[in-house]
């Protein structure tokens, strides 16, 4: 080959650069090479959006209290032009942004770093006695009757709460209960009922910590004072024993209060990292740091996916150059695999096959219309969106929540896949479609299995420079002139 030397030198340089940077950062910033050896660090970002009305503006955001299981190791706020302070009122911490004059769309960020630490224990201020609860008629009668029957079959605060939630969760609710639910939300009702029964209880809002979530809201739950500690209950499912719940608000004021603004809302992004807590404390890492940690959390969780793409591309290169599998559309399998990461494998594969199959049937009708290419693809995009909508609605009707994740599939790519498959069908027959279709699916599944590895995900995000090594491998494979695995079968006739 021409210029083999410089090429090899370049590839080795890339490889060493990747490994070297990774080793340097491991050494200097103690970023762990293996996942799970360190404590999990949750980064939670609250994003407040509102439209300021031009005058003095004040924004209050309730902040999570100190609580067991999580250790607060840092918090910060990004908000241009706003004054910021954290104040504590009656054990409730609140972030307070102020500005003399603000107008137009405003976005405020509050970022929180938490270490998950089961050993961390905080005495939550308890409730000595239940709040007085007053009911209006006819709700009073209904509530008392409901309580009476529940108290009969329960022994203590805990079992009473459990009993109430299972009552609420019954398919056929009693008349009393439906009357009450018309007026009160389930969590308010449950707290009120418990307080009436002299069991201290309150409604709280919690944040579910799940890696890579964006634009999450808070979840309403009920806390019940039982055995000298607060116990979480979901009115619809009963007791909640989940470590991944961050208690955000316990007192009554709203989570977000905006004075001088309208259409305000708050949403949360969550990401987990396995950085040692020590480096988190010391955010000011000296010099040049190739890390993604400094990005806003919402972007970080996007980069968690983006950084996996080179690995998927490498899988495609391996499967096509070393194995010789045919795929429809070179990198379509990677995008499909990316969608699988969101949908999980089995629902993902099923919905992919269903959408493409239905699409092919409709496309075969389109081909009899003799449309021009662009409008044919555009038609397919609309058709795909239609199929996906139908699929989501149907699966929701049948109670299959997995069907909803189908929206993660890249629709334009699906439309092109259908178009290409159908051309192959017409030109080379259904057999070739089966070969290319299953080839694409196989590569997508393999790429998914690789990208789904905990280790690979960890390395790709925490050591993005390792993608230089992936690049080196891809370049190297681009010069591979040996046989493909499947050619050993194709040319088996030369065995004689």
């Amino acid at each position, binding site marked *: 080959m021409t210029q083999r030397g410089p090429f090899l030198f370049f590839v080795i340089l890339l490889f060493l650069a990747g490994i070297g940077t990774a080793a340097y950062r491991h050494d200097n910033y103690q970023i762990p090479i293996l996942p799970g050896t360190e404590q999990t660090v949750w980064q939670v970002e609250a994003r407040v959006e509102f439209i300021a009305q031009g005058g003095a503006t004040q924004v209050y955001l309730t902040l999570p209290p100190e609580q067991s299981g999580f250790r607060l190791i840092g918090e910060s706020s990004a908000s241009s032009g706003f004054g910021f302070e954290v104040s504590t009122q009656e054990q409730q911490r609140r972030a307070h942004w102020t500005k003399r004059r603000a107008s137009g769309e405003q976005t405020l960020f509050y970022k929180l770093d938490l270490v998950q630490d089961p050993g961390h224990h905080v005495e939550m201020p308890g409730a000595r006695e239940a709040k007085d609860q007053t009911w209006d008629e006819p709700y009073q009668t209904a509530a008392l009757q409901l309580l009476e029957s529940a108290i009969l079959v329960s022994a203590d605060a805990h079992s009473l709460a459990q009993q109430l939630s299972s009552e609420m969760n019954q398919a056929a609710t009693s008349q009393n209960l439906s009357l009450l639910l018309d007026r009160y939300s389930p969590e308010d009702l449950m707290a009120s009922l418990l307080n009436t029964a002299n069991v201290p209880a309150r409604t709280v809002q919690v944040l579910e910590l799940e890696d890579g979530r964006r634009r999450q809201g808070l979840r309403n739950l009920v806390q019940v004072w039982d055995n000298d500690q607060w116990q979480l209950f979901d009115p619809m499912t009963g007791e909640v024993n989940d470590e991944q719940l961050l208690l955000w608000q316990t007192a009554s004021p709203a989570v977000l209060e905006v004075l001088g603004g309208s259409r305000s809302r708050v949403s949360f992004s969550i990401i987990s990292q396995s950085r040692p807590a020590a480096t988190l404390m010391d955010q000011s890492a000296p010099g040049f740091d190739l890390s993604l940690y400094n990005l806003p959390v919402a972007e970080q969780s996007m980069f968690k996916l983006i950084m996996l793409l080179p690995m998927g591309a490498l899988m495609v290169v391996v499967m096509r150059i070393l194995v010789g599998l045919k795929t429809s559309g070179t990198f379509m399998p990677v995008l499909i695999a990316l969608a699988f990461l969101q949908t999980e494998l089995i629902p993902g594969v099923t919905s992919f096959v269903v959408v493409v199959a239905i699409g092919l049937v409709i496309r075969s009708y389109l081909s009899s219309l003799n449309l021009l290419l662009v409008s044919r693809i555009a038609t397919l995009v609309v058709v795909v969106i239609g199929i996906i909508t139908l699929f989501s609605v149907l699966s929701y009707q049948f109670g299959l929540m997995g069907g909803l994740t189908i929206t993660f599939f890249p629709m334009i790519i699906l439309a092109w896949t259908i178009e290409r498959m159908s051309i192959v069908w017409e030109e080379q*027959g259904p057999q070739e479609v089966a070969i290319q279709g299953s080839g694409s699916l196989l590569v997508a599944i393999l790429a998914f299995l690789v990208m789904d590895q905990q280790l690979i995900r960890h390395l790709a995000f925490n050591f993005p420079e390792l993608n230089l090594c992936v690049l080196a491998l891809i370049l190297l494979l681009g010069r591979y002139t040996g046989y*493909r695995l499947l050619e050993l079968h194709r040319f088996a006739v030369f065995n004689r």
Partner: protein
Amino acid sequence: MRPLRETLKGWISPRALANRGVLGMNRRNIAYIARYNPRDRYPLVDDKLRTKLVAQKARLKVPALLHVVRTQHEIEAIEDDLTDLTEFVIKPAQGSGGKGILVIVGREGDEYIKGSGARIKLNDIKRHLSNILSGLNSLGGKQDVAIIETLVKVSAQFSSVSHEGVPDIRIIVFRGYPIMGMLRLATRASDGKANLHQGAVGVGIDIGTGRSVTAVQNNKLINRHPDTGAELDKLEIPDWKQMLNLAARCYEVTRLGYMGCDMVIDEQLGPLLLEMNARPGLSIQIANNQGLVPRLRHIEQLEDYYVTVEDRVEYAMRTFTYFPAEVRQQTSEVVMPG
């Protein structure tokens, strides 16, 4: 252990394959196509109209171009163009795999008789042309033009061999030297198409003599055509040297170092060039039961490649043959390679 051995029978070790000199896809792409085929020459061979025009300029023999239909507007006036034609072929300039080819073998009153014997009206021809222009047959649905050319008449000896369609001959030309040849015969299984992986029969043709060497269908050796029953081991291509000359001259026209030339033999006109391919497939090795690599290497090592077409053909015929020199002198008797 039986099933394992059975499974392994369908596979060959890379070393054995390399020993047989078989060219793989990766090596073909990197070491031959990327290296010897200048990218800017591709449009010349990907568009059959351009190929034909260039071939005519270079006085390569091709089926004569009768008309070109470029716009829907021209379709309306097609009747005048067709008035004195009784036999012709309509094909898309950028069609692939034999798609969109309409063969008319005769006329009766208003009706046109297709190759299969079916009769169609002028309106059907117009619709066919319209479909071609809108890109129905071209890869990816690109806009296309339609070519109308003379019908190739295959000699009776040849048409009896193939199930349907015109048997065509593919010759790999490397740096102007014809290095391997194959006759492709459509079968019922391949639906009249000459694609090997769709079940067409491939007959390896000896470069030195034009005689058939081996025949394969679906990677299995065969002796007779599965549909016509014609014997495939005693075939001999007429005007073979002329054909090699035609293929070798394509190199001067296209300057593509590694290409496949597809040709047919007309009863009166002799070998005609149909199309050229800048990315010829690898199945020709199976049909010949012979790897391409030794031949490619051999040509790569030649230093004097400013030689005439005739010299190149002579050299290839001398070098790439299964038959000893004395056999090649006598054309009547057929000897199979041992």
